[in-house]
């Protein structure tokens, strides 16, 4: 039976994706769960597995094309006989990290319906009216109500109505024009998310220095003593952040359209610079993970991020990201909070400085600058500072990080 192959929806906010690779050729047979093509969404390239055994019949979309969720990219034969039907969009949607379910409910879950093209947009009358008034396309809004219905509170608060350009504007002096290029789908998505994050999240910033000579010594000794894991400074920072988060669960929460969400596990995002831009895999339950497995997980996530092979679920959740620019010779880095999270910790390079000691004599210190950007809607300055102080304390007395 001939069936359509569709662009799947991989995250709550995914509206379109780029077809970057076919892993089977027309005429090739494939097994259920075998990867058949790769879609690049906002931040990740994801291999899409086959729903069932079958044969790829035809490819109908060009590589590199940006396609809406639900668009047809080819046809396959499911080896069954009968009338054709569309392959349902796989429901691998990423929901916010659910708070530690105690058991999978037996009843059918009420996952939000994924919106295929032409599918009716469910929205309350008030949401429809406000969207029209503010010039918001409801297709771009994720609904939080029953069956994914869009409620008034789901709409962005600030409408992006283009300002009217007056034709009689004063004549500007001629300026040499540069080259103009259409941003890629990924660039556009990142731009939109960063603008929203910077506009909507009331950021505040706390900077501190950590004295890391003990940490550097410990790291060298650990790396010299064994060859299984190569520890980097970042692994200790991730561990310190995870432990601090586990000790202060009141910090481990994020602002959502529907309220302040407390997260069940101390997950920590790790910013990885790649050719495709910044990727943020989120390491799970870092608060309780011993250092060695944490280092292995971090190294593996970084490698997969570099290869563009991170799954969308790997980049979801967490209240904080660690962004380490230490290798780039910078003292302080003040970062924009990753959308959906509440904090980002920018790490600078380690510098040798003289500071007056208790007797006002110059003492050599190895200092690492850290700037915590935090969302003031969920954190107050004192709590955020206590959290940051815990991280500093853990880094300055690093032996504690060896015991989970």
């Amino acid at each position: 039976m001939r069936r359509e192959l569709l662009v799947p929806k991989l995250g709550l906010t995914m509206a379109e994706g780029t077809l970057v690779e076919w892993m089977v050729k027309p005429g090739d047979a494939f097994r259920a769960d075998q990867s058949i093509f790769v879609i690049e969404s906002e931040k990740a390239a994801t291999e899409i597995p086959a729903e069932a055994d079958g044969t790829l019949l035809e490819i109908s979309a060009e590589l590199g094309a940006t396609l809406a969720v639900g668009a047809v990219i080819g046809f396959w034969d499911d080896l069954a006989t009968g009338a054709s039907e569309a392959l349902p969009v796989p429901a691998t949607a990423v929901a916010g990290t659910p708070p530690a379910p105690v058991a999978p409910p037996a009843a059918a879950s009420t996952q939000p319906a994924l919106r295929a093209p032409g599918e009716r947009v469910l929205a309350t009358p008030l949401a429809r009216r406000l969207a029209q008034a503010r010039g918001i396309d409801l297709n771009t809004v994720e609904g939080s109500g029953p069956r994914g219905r869009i409620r008034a509170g789901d709409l962005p608060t600030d409408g992006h109505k283009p300002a009217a350009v007056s034709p009689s504007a004063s004549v500007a002096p001629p300026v040499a024009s540069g080259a103009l290029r259409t941003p890629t789908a990924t660039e556009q998505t990142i731009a939109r998310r960063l603008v929203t994050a910077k506009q909507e999240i009331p950021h505040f910033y706390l900077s501190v220095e950590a004295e890391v000579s003990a940490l550097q010594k410990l790291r060298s000794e650990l790396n010299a003593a064994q060859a299984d894991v190569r520890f980097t400074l970042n692994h200790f920072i991730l561990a310190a952040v995870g432990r601090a988060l586990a000790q202060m669960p009141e910090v481990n929460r994020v602002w959502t359209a529907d309220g302040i969400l407390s997260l069940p596990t101390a997950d920590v995002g790790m910013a990885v610079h790649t050719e495709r831009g910044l990727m943020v895999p989120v390491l799970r339950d870092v608060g309780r993970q011993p250092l060695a497995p944490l280092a292995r997980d971090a190294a593996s996530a970084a490698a997969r991020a570099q290869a563009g092979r991170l799954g969308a679920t790997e980049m979801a959740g967490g209240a904080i990201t660690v962004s380490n620019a230490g290798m780039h010779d910078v003292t302080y880095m003040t970062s924009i909070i990753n959308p959906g999270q509440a904090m980002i910790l920018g790490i600078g390079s380690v510098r040798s400085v003289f500071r007056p000691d208790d007797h006002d004599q110059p003492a050599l210190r190895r200092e690492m600058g850290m700037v915590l950007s935090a969302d003031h809607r969920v954190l107050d300055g004192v709590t955020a500072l206590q959290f940051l102080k815990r991280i500093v304390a853990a880094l300055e007395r690093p032996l504690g990080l060896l015991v989970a």
Partner: protein
Amino acid sequence: MEKLFDVLVIGGGPGGYVAALRAAQLKLRTALVECEHLGGICLNWGCIPTKSLLHTADTLRRIRHADSLGLRVTEPTIDFPRVMARSRDVAQRLNRGVAQLLRKAGVTVLDGRASFAADRSVQVRAADGSNRSLQARHTIVATGAHSRALPALPFDGEQVWSYRDALAAGALPKSLLVIGAGAIGMEFASFYATLGSTVTVVEAQARVLPTGDADVSDFVAKAFARDGIGLRTGARLERAEVYAHGVQVTLQTGSGTEMLEAERVLVAVGLAGNTDGLGLQHTQVQVERGLIVADASGTTRDPSVHAIGDVTGAPMLAHRASHQGLACVERIAGLHGHVPSPSPLIPSCVYSHPQSASVGLTEEEARALDRPLRVGRFPLEASGKAIAIGEASGFVKTIFDADTGALLGAHIVGPDAPELIHGFTLAGTLEATEADLMETVFPHPTLSEALHESVLAAFGRPLHI
């Protein structure tokens, strides 16, 4: 080692037992601990038995007014013990119903007082002194609230009543003083006055039903005064003396001091959360002024301890507790088809005569938003159905955001107001605008037509006024 439960609910009131039923529906191993009666205060000593008493009062009032309907009747005799006994029967019948529902759902019900131990287990001490230790992945605290006492008038069950004493009185008092003009005080004042007690209501704030809309307070206060109920608002209790046969209080009002005497006094000045003795110090929950800090789905600072209902503070209403209980259990079960609203619309109802019901903001609260408003008011004197049933007294008031057409608040006073308010609750929950409400066809002749007219009136186009 006791068996491990997925969900342990402490408290069998309308929050707790509903949460337990939902948890069992979701196939979670569920236990419920109750120290007194299943169904809680609501079913045993609150909502339900008072509605039984107020129904008696309503029926009596109708019989007295039957003359105007063309029926000649003589003044009925009141069998007061029988009135009270019926109220208790109703409560007991529903109490057995809850036990049956929990049994059918497979919820393990334990009698006793629960408290958290230092090792995070939950200890249940039964009335016979025996102790049981329970383990649960998630515990939901749904322990409710109790009447706040006045230091000058401690409850004694004789002259100084709590709501419980007012629900179990042996005889109709000749005179009754009610301290507190909230829903509880106003309902008992209405009941006892209708049956023949001389009733005076004392309220420290400037108006009766002080948390509601001021128009509703005014209307209800005038109706009470017409029914011969004394009202002292803005009155502070200065001194109180309790004697063998009654109570004497001295009030400080704006115009000076006043002495009032009554055979009985009902203290209904608010409720305080039941947080004592729960061992909450062994959890990470945050307790502020005797209440557990929790959100609309019962999330506390402790990831495995949740709290719902009155113990989490206002509005202390049974239906709110049930709703929060459901949201809490569904969150625990990881059911996340949609995010429960962080601020569900919770209607509040008062069953005095006249009855009243509200949802959303009062006009005063809406004005504080500093947005242009549209306020509609439709009097029941203009409702065909209200005239036909001889109860053409009351109004429906609606408050809209003038720019967006969002329904911000609705207030109804009059017959069966609590049965009518759901129309606006549903409209508000579905985020209907004035256009949707105008487009809705209301059946004729009903009191509900007044809801429609009020919306029309808010936008300057009522038909029947």
